[in-house]
């Protein structure tokens, strides 16, 4: 320890204190600017395009054909009758009313609104001497005969029964597609609730599901999210009051948390980013981290003041000691979160940028601001029995007595006492061995079993008995299924689809999907319609439900179908110049594995059935989008996890100047991460675009705790020269603050478990679990690891200034 170097941190602190007014002014100005940004520019809403990885081939396919084949964001509504069937005046009138109302909702694609009463649903029939293609319902039926005729049309046209009307005639389906751009989720939610209210009566129930509705529900919960966050904040406040019982102990951490939040959110306003409601959990976590850093610093200040009795000296001493671990953990976390940008999903990239800025802002709100703030407050009251002091003061044995300094500390010290023994006795070996076994064996098991996107989006975010999921089950059990995957048949010249081989392959692919993919409920292609029309061409004789062979016949049918539909109606099945066509496959249920299997099944089929002039491309529809999102999320999760671990290791090695020291932090981190993954598996919490960032950011909590404990251990060991007493001191001081922040945050976040949104509830559980195990990792495993690896080798070279 050279005198010069030891003063660098101290000099910075002293400079900060000298320049406190200018620094304060700058911080206030910047904060004011961010408040302005926050108030006027930040929008908490979901932008669907932000969820799609733009360079993924599936998304490129989707964007290329979106205007032709329609949006993938389709809402499904089921109108069900209790008594009788749907073929009655009242029910059909309601269907008609809903259809018309939907057409007026903002953001709807009118071409993708379809229902039994919409003229787009066609009846292919033989007139007296001509073929007629007309709506199934031209005017709403009034008489029993007319109602009867509707029923006959439903039964006699392919792709109506089972698709739009259940096989038992008790329910009918209404679809509405929404463009990503024009969607106003809050308005959509309001409109749908109104439609539901106006439709339902003693005999009718309306179920609403589908992607736009899912996000409308999420939007509707945003205000409740705020409430829960406010409660979390209040609980934290209460805990701070209980623990510190000084004004500064409450005001300083809260100010740090608030300033971090304002900077982070305001920064997203500067960049013009939306904040997705599901991602809101992460900012909350980041601000909690600011508070936790602040608490560490204050704890140290309280201790040092007790020893030195001088406010300024205590400030300089305590913040000098904390500068290094604080900066290292901020840099580690900041860079770690930044690695999320490797994911090409815009939402994740933005989260990476905002998140890392947010963490960096903790430097300002805690390291820069805290010592300055502390100078404005009166010093804490003198304590009768000081906690073990630090540095030189600790060398005298009489100060080793650990007394209760503030009445709020009692419970925490009991916990500390419990933890101390693990670092020294035989228990250190036991702890390390248990950790190694759990990490390695568990890690292998977890990597085999953890799957991204294990449940459908609806069930990952909302409870199973939520109206949305009930509706989804209704659609998926009684109809062909609400989740579409689209295969695009891309011709290399005009009219490429109008040949027998292409038509047959389209049809066969649909049949193959129904036969070979378990979750598939049905498939629709232009071939199905062609067969129906071809049959009608031939006096309606059922044996003519055949695909025409002659390209002229095929085009003739296309022209008839196209001519009898209004602009764009047939686009989702075939393009107007017959160059491209689609196979639309309906899934009753899905998860990532189902989608993956379906894609590989279809790829196999496509490879085995090449068609001249036509290339088949995967995978459009909502399932294609989900597949691309899952692929991206999965790979970026591992990358950002790896990055955090590598960064932590490298920065630890640099800080403690020992290669073994790096391992000390890595193993407890890996241990709690493995336990977390286990927990997610056991609780069936889905790993998806929303939960993975939480897990990735959560790791950083462990880095914070670990670094503080390890630094304190090194410091005490170097001053006291005795490892056992160093552990004792570190746990009872820094460890106590770790226990306090961890338990306070858990106490605040526990509330989330009672959220109306399953996602938030699960994230609450996950975070509680994560913090608890990271706390244990820091308090038990780190001292044990140091003991086992040898303090001389690991923490001797750490620079205590």
């Amino acid at each position, binding site marked *: 320890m050279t005198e010069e170097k030891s003063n660098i941190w101290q000099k910075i602190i002293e400079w900060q204190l000298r320049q406190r007014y200018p620094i304060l002014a700058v911080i206030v100005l910047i904060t004011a600017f961010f408040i302005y940004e926050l108030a006027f520019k930040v929008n908490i809403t979901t932008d669907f395009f932000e969820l799609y990885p733009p360079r993924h081939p599936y998304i490129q396919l989707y964007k290329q054909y979106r205007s032709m084949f329609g949006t993938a964001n389709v809402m499904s509504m089921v109108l069900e009758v209790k008594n009788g069937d749907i073929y009655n005046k009242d029910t059909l009138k309601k269907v008609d009313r809903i259809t018309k109302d939907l057409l007026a909702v903002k953001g709807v694609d009118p071409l993708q609104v379809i229902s039994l009463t919409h003229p787009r649903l066609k009846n292919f029939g033989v007139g007296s001497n001509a073929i007629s293609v007309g709506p199934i319902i031209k005017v709403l039926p009034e008489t029993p005969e007319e109602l009867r005729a509707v029923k006959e049309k439903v039964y006699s046209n392919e792709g109506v*029964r089972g*698709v739009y009307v259940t096989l038992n005639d008790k329910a009918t389906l209404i679809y509405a597609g929404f463009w990503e751009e024009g969607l106003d989720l809050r308005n959509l939610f309001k409109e749908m609730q109104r439609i539901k209210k106006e439709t339902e009566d003693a005999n009718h129930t309306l179920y609403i599901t589908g992607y736009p509705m899912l996000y409308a529900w999420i939007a509707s919960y945003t205000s409740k999210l705020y409430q829960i966050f406010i409660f979390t904040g209040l609980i934290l406040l209460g805990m701070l009051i209980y623990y510190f019982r000084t004004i500064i102990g409450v005001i300083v951490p809260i100010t740090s948390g608030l300033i971090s939040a304002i900077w982070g959110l305001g920064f997203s306003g500067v960049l013009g980013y939306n904040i997705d409601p599901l991602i809101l959990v992460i900012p909350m976590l980041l601000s909690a981290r600011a508070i936790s850093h602040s608490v560490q610093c204050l704890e140290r200040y309280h201790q040092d003041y007790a020893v030195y009795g001088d406010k300024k000296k205590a400030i300089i001493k305590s913040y000098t000691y904390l500068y290094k671990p604080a900066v290292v953990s901020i840099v580690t976390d900041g860079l770690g979160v930044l690695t999320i940008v490797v994911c090409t999903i815009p939402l994740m990239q933005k989260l990476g940028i905002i998140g890392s800025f947010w963490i960096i802002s903790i430097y300002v709100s805690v390291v820069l601001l805290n010592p300055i703030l502390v100078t404005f407050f009166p010093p804490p009251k003198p304590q009768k029995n000081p906690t073990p002091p630090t540095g030189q003061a600790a060398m005298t044995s009489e100060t080793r007595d650990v007394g209760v300094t503030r009445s709020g500390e009692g419970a925490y010290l009991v916990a500390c006492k419990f933890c101390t023994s693990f670092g020294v006795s035989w228990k250190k070996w036991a702890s390390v061995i248990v950790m190694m076994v759990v990490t390695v064996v568990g890690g292998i098991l977890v990597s085999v079993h953890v799957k991204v996107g294990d449940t459908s989006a609806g069930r990952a975010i909302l409870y199973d008995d939520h109206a949305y999921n009930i509706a989804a089950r209704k659609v998926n059990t009684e109809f062909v299924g609400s989740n579409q995957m689209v295969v695009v048949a891309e011709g290399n010249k005009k009219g490429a689809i109008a040949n027998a081989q292409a038509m047959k392959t389209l049809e066969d692919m649909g049949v193959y999907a129904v036969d070979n993919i378990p979750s598939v409920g049905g498939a629709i292609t232009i071939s199905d319609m062609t067969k129906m029309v071809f049959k009608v061409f031939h006096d309606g004789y059922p044996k003519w439900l055949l695909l025409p062979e002659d390209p002229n016949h095929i085009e003739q049918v296309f022209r008839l179908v196209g001519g009898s539909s209004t602009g764009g109606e047939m686009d989702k099945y075939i393009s107007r110049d017959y160059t491209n066509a689609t196979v639309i496959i309906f899934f009753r249920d899905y998860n990532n594995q189902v989608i993956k299997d379906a894609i590989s099944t279809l790829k196999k089929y496509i490879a085995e059935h090449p068609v001249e002039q036509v290339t088949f491309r995967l995978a459009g529809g909502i399932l294609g989008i989900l597949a691309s999102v899952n692929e991206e999320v999965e790979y970026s999760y591992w990358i950002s996890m790896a990055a955090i671990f590598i960064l932590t290791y490298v920065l630890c090695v640099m800080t403690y100047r020992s290669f073994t020291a790096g391992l000390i932090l890595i193993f407890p981190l890996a241990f709690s991460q493995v336990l977390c993954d286990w927990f997610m598996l056991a609780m069936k919490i889905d790993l998806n675009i929303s939960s993975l960032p939480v897990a990735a950011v959560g790791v950083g909590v462990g880095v914070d705790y670990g670094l503080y404990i390890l630094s304190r251990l090194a410091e005490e060991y170097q001053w006291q020269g005795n490892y056992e007493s160093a552990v004792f001191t570190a746990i009872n001081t820094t460890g106590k603050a770790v226990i306090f922040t961890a338990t306070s945050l858990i106490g605040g976040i526990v509330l989330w478990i009672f959220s109306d949104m399953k996602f938030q509830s699960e994230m609450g559980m996950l975070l509680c679990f994560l913090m608890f195990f990271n706390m244990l990792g820091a308090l038990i495993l780190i001292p044990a690891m140091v003991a086992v690896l040898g303090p001389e080798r690991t923490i001797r070279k750490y620079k205590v200034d």
Partner: protein
Amino acid sequence: MKKRTHIIISILLGVLLYLSQDVVFAAKAKQKEGGIGAPHILSECFVDAKEGWACGLRGTVYHTTDGGMKWEQQNIDTEVPLLSIYFLNSQVGWVGGKTGTVFHTVDGGKTWKAQAMPKKRHVFALKALSTEKCWAAGDWGSIFYTADGGNTWEDKTLEKDLIMYSIDFQGEKEGWIVGEYGTIMHTADGGITWTEQKSGTENTLFSVCFISDREGVAVGLSNTILRTEDGGRTWNKIEMNLPEGMKDDLRSIYSVKMRGDKGIAVGDRGWIITTTDGGKTWKITQVPLDVSLFWCCAVQMLDDDRAVIVGMRSIVIMTEGDKLKMMGFMPVVSPPMPKK
């Protein structure tokens, strides 16, 4: 004890079925049978009151040995729509399909062997006269004939481009083929020459059936029923006494079978009609609402009274006289009847 449980369960089931007669149909339709993806059955053939075959879309062939109650799918190496089936006896039969697809069996359908047709025409009708001789007809006026069990098929295609839908023979000499626009072709020399008979209608005929070389019935589009008593030299149109509301909503008749004076014809939207006077008058069989949503494509008579009807979404309907007796979907047909 066991027996008692069985009885109790049976009674309970019976009560349930009685209470939920409406539901029985729906519940069945929900299963894969009869639901979406269940293939349409387009043709059938019985060699006696017990044994028969049926074929349909997606290369399906079904076989029954209990008069159509239980059906078992047979293995045939094709996915092609199969449009017509004919069995001469319990061993020898042919099945015909899209674009010249023909399969032949000599072991009751255990193994099927593909045969080559002279032209790629849809085989809408088959009629075997012996184990060696068989007639086939289809679109583009195609008529094919084999005299060697199908090793070689001769091309006897008509000059006119007309779709031919049905063949019937009385003996090996007298034969009729009917098709598009009321066309009736007749041969009196075993198919060496075919001459056109005057049907008196422009409506497409889908099915023809003779009970002697003089008496026969042909049916087709818009409830067309033609009857002849002189081998087809003159055909008379039979006007049915249709109830109000049906007169301007005529249904197509796709298949007719006669057995002496008794006969049955089936068609669009659950249309089932029967005759007991050789086709002079016809009576409508009342079917439940739901059945009338299915088209019936083929009918076969098991004896003078009982008939088996197949059609849309693998539906199977059994009738006795002018009464509906049973219905269901391939592969199992069960007795509980849906309510009217």
